[in-house]
């Protein structure tokens, strides 16, 4: 994973609560076996509406999505993160994220940054008043900058560290392989097994 420290790009105001992952990418796009090429599925139902924010030229090249509370609820599909990234988004800002979405984002180098709802509202106003305004998401300094606004950015310490370092989770865990071996030695014999032999 490439390290993420600071990103500046056009902000996209998505004034909706409860943006579930079925809206981010509907199930019909999940049939692929590849890890890339999901951008056409991003918000595919909403993008059929000409007034949808991503259909407006000033926002269509945006890379910082600013959404209402409870972003990423529902299905665990990591395809939602892949679709956002494949489209060009590098950060999503919201006052509240669903747990699974936030975890998936952190593993793919997409910043899921939490802001106070009043800061989200201020950024929305700015982005709508001046479409094309850029937003800076600074993971190093834990702030979001938009015009005059300097808003505190909340990302948990561990996710921030992994993003800043560009660390791969499996590689990190395998440093603890001795601890895993030791744990397995003391698991009770009656724990379920899917195969009779090992």
């Amino acid at each position, binding site marked *: 994973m490439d390290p993420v420290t600071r990103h500046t790009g056009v902000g996209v105001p998505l*004034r*909706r*609560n*409860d943006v*579930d992952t*079925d*809206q981010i990418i*509907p*199930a*019909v796009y*999940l*049939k*692929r*076996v*590849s*890890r890339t090429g999901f951008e056409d599925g991003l918000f595919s*139902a909403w993008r059929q509406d000409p007034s949808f924010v991503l259909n407006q030229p000033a926002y269509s090249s945006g890379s910082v999505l600013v959404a*209402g*509370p*409870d972003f990423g*609820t*529902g*299905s*665990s*599909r*990591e*395809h939602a*993160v892949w679709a956002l990234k494949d489209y060009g988004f590098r950060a999503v800002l919201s006052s*509240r*994220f*669903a*747990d*699974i979405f936030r*975890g*998936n984002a952190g*593993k*793919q180098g997409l910043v899921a940054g939490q802001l106070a709802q009043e800061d989200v509202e201020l950024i929305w106003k700015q982005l709508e008043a001046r479409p094309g305004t850029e937003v800076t998401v600074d993971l190093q300094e834990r702030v979001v900058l938009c015009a005059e606004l300097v808003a505190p950015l909340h990302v*948990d*310490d*561990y996710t921030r560290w992994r993003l800043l370092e560009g660390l791969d*989770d*499996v590689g*990190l*865990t*395998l440093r*603890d392989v001795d*601890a*895993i071996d030791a*744990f*397995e030695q003391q*698991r*009770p014999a*009656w*724990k*379920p*097994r*899917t*195969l009779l*032999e*090992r």
Partner: protein
Amino acid sequence: MGRTLAEKVWDEHVVRHGGAGEPDLLYIDLHLLHEVTSPQAFEGLRLEGRAVRRRDLTIATEDHNTPTLDIDKPIADPTSRTQIETLRRNCAEFGVRLHPLGDAEQGIVHVVGPQLGLTQPGTTVVCGDSHTSTHGAFGALAMGIGTSEVEHVLATQTLPLSRPRTMAVTVEGELPEGATAKDVILAVIARIGTGGGQGYVLEYRGSAIRALSMEARMTICNMSIEAGARAGMIAPDETTFAYLQGRDHAPTGADWDAAVAHWRTLATDDDAQFDAEVVVDAAELQPFVTWGTNPGQGLPLSGAVPDPDALGDEGQAAAARRALEYMDLVPGTPLRDIAVDAVFIGSCTNGRIEDLRAAAEVVRGQRKADGVRVLVVPGSARVRLQAEAEGLDRVFTDFGAEWRFAGCSMCLGMNPDQLAPGERAASTSNRNFEGRQGKGGRTHLVSPLVAAATAVRGTLSAPVDLEAPQPLVPA
């Protein structure tokens, strides 16, 4: 200080404690796989030259994409077929046990695990599917994960996870006639909202929960994610042990005794503290239906479509306006006046044998309403066989319903079972999101009893609506 059920199961699985602000490394006892969220994970292993660490703690089945008709023929949709074939190749290459379409143990992954006795109290269970919370009904800590985490578990049999907070959802009293587990969980979600459980593991407790069967408990835990909670749990008890004993993968002999002795220690201690608590009075619950486009937008069936302007919070009011526009509903309309085009009975929420029995009892000897399409999809091949042994398939087909093979089907419309644009369904599934059951489709989430009664009358109904009206004056 005492510990909660979730804390005990967590503590038993910590491989390495994280420092301050760091996640713990948690051991995973059971990893369930299906075709949709696994191909990129296997590809990741292949690219890194890694193996599946514990094939004996891993099992796969095919459910999301699979057709529910003509299952002996090649899958018509080429992309679905490729995904299924990819799972088969991956399982063969990496040595993972697979129950493919046509196998007696195939079915929705969350129906299959418990049915085989693989889901056991005190275990950690993960799957690349958010409804993994279902398995919490056994006192397991079970949660949905993304594909990167699927790869992580395949390679290491562990996951780095931050310790969740705990929330008690206490349901005391007796459920009135006609109110079911589905109504309990829909009412809970309406109360705390789709984000209310974020960061928490829910523990459902109280006399109304203890009185439920294992299958009803699974219905409740299944929809924990709809309240934002990654996991929901219920303390294991005699009902749990009785369900498990004798199943294929349940312990036997001295192992059984040792396991049960341990399982009895898992219940939340009397002096344990939850971080939050919600209390629900079972006696006040009624058949519940959703009117909007998220599972928190629900009301008792006796209610009416709400007025968004009366909802107070502007964000919620805007969401409700959008939802009503999408659902084509007018505020003030009695919910019982809403006519449907389709009824779907199935899914990991309500596709088990007790659900089919409950629905069959309502429709037995009746004919479905004209113009309503009724789809009955068992949660697993074994549920289908059991239903057929009991003659339920005949009850449904005589009623005019379609009796299908097992899979996720119209719950998420990845296979051909979809709503057409503008069609409205009463569905026993778990999500009423825009387009969830087919592009432009409209979903009302209901219990199997309400689904069945709705299929009879053609409008949202409960079984009580089917009873002959009593004469005002005794004859």
